[in-house]
């Protein structure tokens, strides 16, 4: 059963050059996802190489702080490379090997997907080049060093907004030019079919584990699950196994950047309109003429004007509620978790954590919330340092 569309969203809006590669990818993926040896190899890598299952941690201090529902954190930050991104890159690198590709390319915003791609390319001995917006290279220097240390080339992208959107454009252009030798590991549930479905399948392990773990701990499903949404892969990963469990409220949190009213945000599902970008039909931040509006967020990983087509579908059928959190709220949540729980979250994941401020006061103590802690915050330390310096300047 393959899914080219999620109701009216999805599809394959790409230059003709890419059609053979997408056909090959679809066919290979459909074949090997049923293949026991592939499943075993993938599962073994997730376990022994990445460290799965990741814990579902009861955040006692955070629960105490909000004095309301029990709060659990799905610890994707404990994966090898520090985020959920590795779940997908391990799956796709096995596919690339299967297809006999010699070279891997990827786009990255925060650098987490770039690091996860460079990591698996090193492990499986494939050439690897990562496209990254010049502005993101600046913001996420630590991850750039990591990618280089892992043997990948990091190619700065100076066009457009110099962020994830433009890195994706360049990666697609590279792929069009080198399609026969190269596999493009897209890092989220975006892009043309089969990527949204395939990346979701590689990420749904998050929700599958969460379901088992919460039942073990509480004997019942959670009342709420929160996840941040840029392209939307960690959110789809945790939501997907719960979509049919109607009593579980699913909330995706986008980045409101400097504030929805300023126009400098990345709240695609709340503020965008349906359009076509990077190969699929989905919600999109665009102006009246259909030009894509650059997204803005303090977290480079949410800085994307599009969103995965399955999210557009889940919004349309009212199965998932989408809301947003701005930069300042995310920074507060970043601090709060670091100080209260001794866990430094990624700024991306901090958007999901920040939503607790809005949600927890409305809930009772017998309810539970699971927050997908999609990544750790080491990469954001420089960013945080700048914030601290700016605050110190204001006080002087």
């Amino acid at each position: 059963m393959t899914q080219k569309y999620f109701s009216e969203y999805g599809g394959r809006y790409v230059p003709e050059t890419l059609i053979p590669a997408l056909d090959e990818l679809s066919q290979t993926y459909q074949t090997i996802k049923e293949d026991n040896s592939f499943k075993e190899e993938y599962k073994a890598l997730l376990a022994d190489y990445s460290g799965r299952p990741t814990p579902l941690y009861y955040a006692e201090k955070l629960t105490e702080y909000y004095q309301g529902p029990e709060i659990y954190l799905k610890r994707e930050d404990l994966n090898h490379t520090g985020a959920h991104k590795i779940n997908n890159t391990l799956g796709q690198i096995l596919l690339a090997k299967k297809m006999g590709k010699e070279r891997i390319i990827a786009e990255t915003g925060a650098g987490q997907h770039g690091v996860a791609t460079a990591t698996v390319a090193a492990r499986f001995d494939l050439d690897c080049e990562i496209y990254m917006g010049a502005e993101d290279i600046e913001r996420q220097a630590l991850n750039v060093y990591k990618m280089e240390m892992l043997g990948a080339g990091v190619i700065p992208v100076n066009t457009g907004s110099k962020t994830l959107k433009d890195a994706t454009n360049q990666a697609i252009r590279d792929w069009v030019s080198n399609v026969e030798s190269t596999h493009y590991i897209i890092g989220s549930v975006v892009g043309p079919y089969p990527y949204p479905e395939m990346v979701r399948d590689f990420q749904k392990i998050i929700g599958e584990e969460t379901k088992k773990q919460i039942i073990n701990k509480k004997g019942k499903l959670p009342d709420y699950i929160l996840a941040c949404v840029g392209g939307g892969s960690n959110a789809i990963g945790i939501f997907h196994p719960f979509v049919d469990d109607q009593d579980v409220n699913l909330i995706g949190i986008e980045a409101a950047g400097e504030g929805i009213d300023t126009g400098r945000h990345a709240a695609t599902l709340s503020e965008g309109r349906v359009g076509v970008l990077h190969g699929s039909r989905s919600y999109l931040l665009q102006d009246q003429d259909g030009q894509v509006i650059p997204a803005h967020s303090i977290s480079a990983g949410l800085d994307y004007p599009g969103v995965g087509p399955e999210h557009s579908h889940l919004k349309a059928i009212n199965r998932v509620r989408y809301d947003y959190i701005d930069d300042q709220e995310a920074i507060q949540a970043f601090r709060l978790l670091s100080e209260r729980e001794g866990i430094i979250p990624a700024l991306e994941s901090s958007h999901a954590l920040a939503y607790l401020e809005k949600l927890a006061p409305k809930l009772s103590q017998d309810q539970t919330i699971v927050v997908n802690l999609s990544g750790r915050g080491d990469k954001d330390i420089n960013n945080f340092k700048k914030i601290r310096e700016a605050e110190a300047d204001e006080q002087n």
Partner: protein
Amino acid sequence: MSRIKESFKNKKPLITYISGGDPDLDFTEKMIYQLQDSGVDILEIGIPFSDPLADGPTIQAASQRAIRGGITLEKLIKKLAEIRDEIEIPVILMGYYNSILNFGEKRFAHDAKAAGISGIIIPDLPFDEDETISEQLKEAAIDQIRLVTPNTATSRIKAIADRSSGFLYSIAHLGITGDSSRENPALKSYLTRVREQAGELPIGLGFGIDSPEKAKKAARHADGIIIGSALIEKIQAGQTEEARLNNADSFVKSIKAVLV
């Protein structure tokens, strides 16, 4: 017979691409007249888009200049409608799907027809996805020019050719516009394969043609040639408006001279 297809009768037409509104619509208008006077057979005008996936640096930059200059699809179509009586050669619009989807497919087909547009190319819209716009264009009697590439399977080339009108746009090599560093050593056999599937439909060859020598070579195997980035680069090399128009004139004439 469509005006575009007719342009392939008894000659190998030169199709040139410029981005609409680069850097403003007044200059686009002047350039259209210049290209027409210089001997271009079919005009391809790009609808500038913020994220042109199939384009290399030259057309990306041209799109950006046009967007900075305030171009919109509405303004572009309006301008072409205003000057349609001055244009004697067929006009093709080349645009990414989001621009058209956002404009409204029905409205686009209607307004394009009213502006005298003869054909449309949408590089990121494979035929499997384009049912609605395809119907609208057919109704408006606007040719839908589709693309094939060297890695397109023969059966798919046939399916694409069957759904194309005006001409079939054959991309010379895998890659993006303006990449003239690549040569396709199998060009002849590729175009033979395309011709076998295209039937009566003329074949236009584009991507990477940047000199009379390459144009001559390309025209040996194709029915017409398409030049975009190389022309834009020549235009941009001019320091004044007059120099830009002159550059376009001499470049077009140098290409036309080998297309006999």
